[in-house]
């Protein structure tokens, strides 16, 4: 129990989190590549071509993981928002603002790759059906959160306001997820669920799971990188940054001597 409490406090303190994140980054990068490369190879080369869609279905290997991540990232932000508001943990606020760009990017990738998939398959770059529209709304919500945070000069207030907005937006997630069930829609229904046997062929499924895992590590990588950058930028006047900079400067002096 003590070790849990110890790590809880460490993760919440910049002095501990910053170097810890720095040490994790190479490992996370390695894991990202470890899943990305086989995933890409299997997805682009060895997975058998789809009966109806031919080779174009391979777009699924970026489109679906990106769409999944766009929602997972938002869900993580929402949990962090609860932590930030209820327990007033500042690191949670930093986590949220560091997640917004990558989350929005995943939504953008999903929308654009979806358009490139939709054009040859269903004849249209875009339709205003429930899933596409709600994913687009998700992108706008991400951008709104970013705009709100940047509008405040005081980052503490900004963090709280952003947490509130994030929680208000979380209602959008079930709408996207269930939109294909609730409405008659052009978009394909879910073939991979948490509980049922997936209705997709195993040779097509494995690269998809590899890419999905790779994207999770990608999110973690970008999150760590962005949090370190934001922490330095926001805490520039604080003691822990001073210590880090001065340690660095001493190191450089020693190297020159």
């Amino acid at each position, binding site marked *: 129990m003590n070790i849990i409490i110890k790590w809880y406090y460490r993760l919440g303190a910049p002095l501990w989190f910053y170097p810890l994140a720095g040490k994790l980054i190479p490992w996370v990068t390695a894991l990202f590549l470890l899943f990305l490369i086989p995933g890409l190879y299997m997805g682009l080369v060895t997975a058998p071509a789809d009966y109806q869609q*031919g080779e174009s279905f391979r777009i699924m290997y970026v489109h679906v993981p990106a769409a999944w991540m766009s929602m997972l990232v938002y869900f993580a932000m929402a949990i962090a928002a609860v932590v930030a508001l209820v327990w007033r943990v500042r690191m949670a606020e930093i986590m949220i603002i560091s997640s917004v760009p*990558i989350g929005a990017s995943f939504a953008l990738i999903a929308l654009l790759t979806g358009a490139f998939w939709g054009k040859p398959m269903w004849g249209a770059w875009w339709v205003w059906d429930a899933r596409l529209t709600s994913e687009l709304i998700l992108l706008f919500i991400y951008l709104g959160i970013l705009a709100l945070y940047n509008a405040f000069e005081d980052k503490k207030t900004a963090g709280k306001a952003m947490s509130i907005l994030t929680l208000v937006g979380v209602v959008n997630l079930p709408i996207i997820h269930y939109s294909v069930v609730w409405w008659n829609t052009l978009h394909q229904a879910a073939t991979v669920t948490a509980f049922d046997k997936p209705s997709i062929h195993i040779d097509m499924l494995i690269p998809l799971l590899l890419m999905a895992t790779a994207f999770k590590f990608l999110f973690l990588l970008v999150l760590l990188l962005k949090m370190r950058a934001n922490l330095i930028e926001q805490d520039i*006047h604080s003691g822990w940054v001073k210590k880090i*900079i*001065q340690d660095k400067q001493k190191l450089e002096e020693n190297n020159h001597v």
Partner: protein
Amino acid sequence: MSEFINMGGYGFYVWSSFGIAAVVILANIIEPILHHKNALKEADDFYSEES
């Protein structure tokens, strides 16, 4: 190899998709690295002024 690029006639769509994804992902990796570098540099300048 050319079959690989052609993707059964869908080459333009498949490679555009993967290309877009690659560009966006790279941007998301490079931007924080640059941001971090800049922030460190500003901090460095700030604390060099003091001494």
